[in-house]
């Protein structure tokens, strides 16, 4: 969620506030991290996985407002700014029940 509400501060120049939301927990546990806008999204996801004890994230996707991010690109390249909550988790799998 591109969340400006509920977080009154503004990030310092060329930074944004980021939180990673999973069902194993949120990183950081409270509030947001302030990160450089040119930092690849995956850096924060890697920290989240370590902190939350998530060991296997193959096939996981990161989304903001339903839009999938390219986690190898920066926040700027993903058109993100301000305060952002990233939903991180597995892509749905399946289909194919035919009978």
């Amino acid at each position, binding site marked *: *969620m591109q969340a400006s509400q509920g977080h009154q501060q503004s990030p310092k120049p060329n930074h944004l506030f980021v939180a990673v939301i*999973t069902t194993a927990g949120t990183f950081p546990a409270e509030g947001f991290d302030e990160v450089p806008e040119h930092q690849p999204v995956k850096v924060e996801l890697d920290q989240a996985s370590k902190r939350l004890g998530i060991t296997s994230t193959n096939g*996981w996707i990161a989304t903001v407002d339903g839009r999938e991010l390219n986690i190898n690109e920066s926040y700027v390249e993903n058109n993100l700014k301000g305060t952002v909550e990233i939903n991180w988790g597995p892509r*749905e*799998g399946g*289909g194919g*029940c035919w009978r």
Partner: protein
Amino acid sequence: MNPTAAKALFDAAVSGLSERLLQTRGWFVHSRVWPTVDLSFRHSERQELRLRLSCDDWNDTPPSVDLLAPDGSFLVGLPNQRPGPSPIYNAGAHPRTGRPFVCMAGVREYHEHPSHVNDLWANYKALDAYTLGEIVTQLWRGWERYWP
């Protein structure tokens, strides 16, 4: 699974559904009392979908998922879903329930379906993508992608 152990695993899983997560994702929990999670996915631009996950024998057995209308009644049909490669919400009648069902690994109706009886839950249950919370995440992803 010993019922006490199953309940402990269930309680630990549902406690991870924090208010922050629920608010961010538009999940509304009607009830999360062992062995059932009853929740809705809501978004202003999409029809609500309510799900009831029956988690008896968790996690030796994956949850059974009922597709519900917002009032809690069974869905007898599905809305026309958005086009895509492999929607997980199947409008056909499941052999056991006779109702529309979720065709996705991690859901009991999938693993007991004649098309997938050889795709064993045992191959998934230890993966991070198949915790109870992440199964709900996958159901939500599918709703986001395909639901009108």
